[in-house]
């Protein structure tokens, strides 16, 4: 039972990170029906920004400001930075393609991904950076329930991703911009006719999606440490996977998808062979997709004739 509990916690925290990335995919997809494959690299940039904020606020071994404030600033800088990056990417790589086929932005996104990755390689140098927080967030900080240990960083990540997700849901459902976003998602031309400034709403969408990826990047750093220019590919893919199994375009779906994916991965590694864990995860996901072809919360595609 403890073992299962521990693995579930492992899975849920990892899933929280996936979910935040998935939300960016889902938001953008929901509005523009394009797969923003550069999203994983935005996440990478977020991780770097968080890292630099951390080193700036005091060497890794001697924080010069309170830890809580430092964490806050790290998240703020990373989220603002990636949010702006999201806006720039949208402006240059996607807006000119808004009325073309669906597959063109895919390639444009690919180009952006290559640019970001190698740009980061150039500017940040190839060194792998490490979030070295062990001296002021002790590894032993946290609490235990019987044999079960929940450390502080994992708990923080879990809580923060939950908070961000709740805020996002509120934003999408309760505000004018959120409503406009859904309207654009359903019928962009009609939304234009309502006087909705589509450019502005899409900018917001990209800002929020990218900022969430930035937050995920910092979380990843705090949780798993290593930061390098090539780190975006796999989490990007996982985020995409989470978004699709949740039902792409659905905000709560992305959250569920992310958590589900994290838990499946953890359990596959924890109970079955680590060697075959990825194979098993993917086969489980395929089976799942075959039985629920539209994801957990995706609306079934209406046959409109």
């Amino acid at each position, binding site marked *: 039972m403890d073992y299962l509990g521990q693995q579930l916690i492992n899975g849920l925290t990892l899933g929280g990170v996936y979910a935040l990335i998935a939300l960016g995919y889902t938001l953008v997809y929901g509005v523009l029906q394009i797969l923003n494959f550069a999203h994983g690299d935005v996440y990478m940039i977020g991780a770097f920004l968080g890292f630099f904020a951390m080193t700036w606020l005091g060497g890794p071994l001697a924080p010069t400001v309170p830890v809580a404030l430092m964490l806050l600033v790290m998240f703020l800088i990373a989220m603002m930075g990636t949010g702006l990056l999201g806006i720039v990417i949208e402006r240059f790589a996607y807006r000119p393609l808004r009325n073309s086929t669906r597959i*063109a932005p895919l*390639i444009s996104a*690919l*180009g952006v991904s290559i640019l970001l*990755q190698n740009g980061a390689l*150039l500017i940040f140098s190839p060194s792998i950076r490490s979030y070295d927080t062990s001296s002021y967030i002790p590894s032993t900080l946290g609490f235990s329930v019987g044999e079960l240990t929940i450390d502080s960083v994992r708990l923080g990540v879990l809580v923060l991703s939950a908070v961000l997700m709740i805020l996002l849901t509120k934003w999408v459902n309760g505000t004018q911009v959120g409503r406009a976003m859904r309207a654009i998602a359903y019928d962009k031309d009609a939304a234009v006719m309502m006087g909705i400034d589509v450019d502005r709403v899409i900018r917001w969408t990209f800002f929020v999606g990218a900022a969430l990826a930035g937050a995920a990047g910092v979380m990843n750093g705090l949780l798993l440490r290593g930061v390098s220019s090539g780190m975006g590919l796999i989490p990007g893919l996982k985020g995409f996977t989470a978004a699709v199994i949740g039902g792409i375009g659905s905000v709560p779906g992305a959250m569920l998808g992310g958590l589900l994916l994290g838990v499946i991965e953890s359990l596959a590694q924890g109970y079955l062979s680590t060697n075959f864990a990825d194979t098993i995860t993917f086969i489980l996901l395929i089976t799942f997709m075959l039985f629920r*072809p539209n994801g957990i919360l995706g609306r079934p595609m209406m046959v409109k004739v």
Partner: protein
Amino acid sequence: MSNLGIGTDEWVAQHEERLASQSPLKKLFARIPLWAKWGSFFLIAFLFGMLSDNQYLLRVGVNLALFIMLSYGLNIVVGYAGILDLGYVAFYGFGAYGYALLSSEQLGQHWPTYVTVPFITILTAILGYLISLPSRRLFGDYLAIVTLFFGQVFVQLVLASDNITFPWADDYVDITAGSNGIPGLDTFNLFGYIFDDIKDYYWLLMVIVLVLTVAIHRVSATRIGRAWRTVREDALVSEVMGVSVKRVKTLAFVAGATIAGFAGTIFAGMQTSVFINGFDLPLMVMIYAAIILGGSGSLAGALIGAIIMTILPELLRVPNYGAILFFVALLLTFFVLSKKFSRFLIYVVSIILIGFAFQLAMKAIGVTQANAEDWVVGFTGDLLKNWLFVPENRILWGNFAFILLLSLIAFFSIAKPIWKHVLLPFIGFTAIFLWEVRLIADVSTTRQLIIGAMLVVLMILRPQGLFGQTRVEIL
């Protein structure tokens, strides 16, 4: 009042106008017969094979031919039938690993080539069929993700299958050698003719590509090809119009898989080793880029896309080619943006002046200059070394230039027209500075940056791809 033309067909009335609006180059190109365009490609390929003994170029040629096969195959699946298959490259890997397992010491098998290749190709076709079965239930992005999973399952399975432990056995079983890959494969041996030279593969592949080109061209223009395209356009209507959509989709999927598997066997024979990381997402991405750049759904596009994605990265390994590309692109951009020749000249002169001003300013504030030997790479560096002031701490300056350039471009995009004229020369100078100081010295990263930028720019300029038709899509 009588010739109001009320009730006449509008498009008929505009037909002439539309014809006239075509560019003369386009018209000229349209007049060259199809066979001549294709013929010239194969003629060049033939002459190259006859004349060249450069192992490297031949190897690039072989890579290109394999890539063409892959993009042809993917073009059937994605371009014609509109199935977004993100696991396509697994079939290539399956073919290669299939050949490897039957032609190496890994399992101690050494089957004759004329058995292995057809056997593995047919096996890939069957695999393609099996995978298409569950995929029939799915559409669009959901199908994409499931195929992506299939591709990943292949990769993970190969990686993991070097260490299979059974409950009843003490030792583990090694089938695929995992991340170690399988070296020392038999090269092709067709009835005693041993393919011991890269040229053998070159000729073999040339024939295959030629045959495939003709075959795919024929199929795409006739019944099956049409059916594929109707499925792409609107599967539901296609079904209602009597097309057995599931069968036709499966056929496309299997045809693509078969070509990829076949290409895989040839690749393995040529390379005489297989490693799993060559069959993962990066290659997948490159094939997609090729067919979409070329124009999804166009055979010529698949070919041209493959050429771009194979040749360009090789060319860009040489700093000077990169420099030519960079400066020509820069000049062209300025030319297009300036619209008038006189304004273009003003820009160029301004950039030159900014260079000198920068030099003076830097010297005035006492920044030490870097030794020319440290940074001059290629002929442009030689040309510019007296004009361009390069400070000593190049890396740092380069990074700042990089960020400055990005910000300038961002400002440019939202600036008022007058400010644009002011900004442009500064953008130009910063770009040149960045190029000389940082980019040209780091060819490999620059190469990737150029490819990335090219993908974005090409898509923006021609979203339908070079040879693609303008398309409309109804969601």
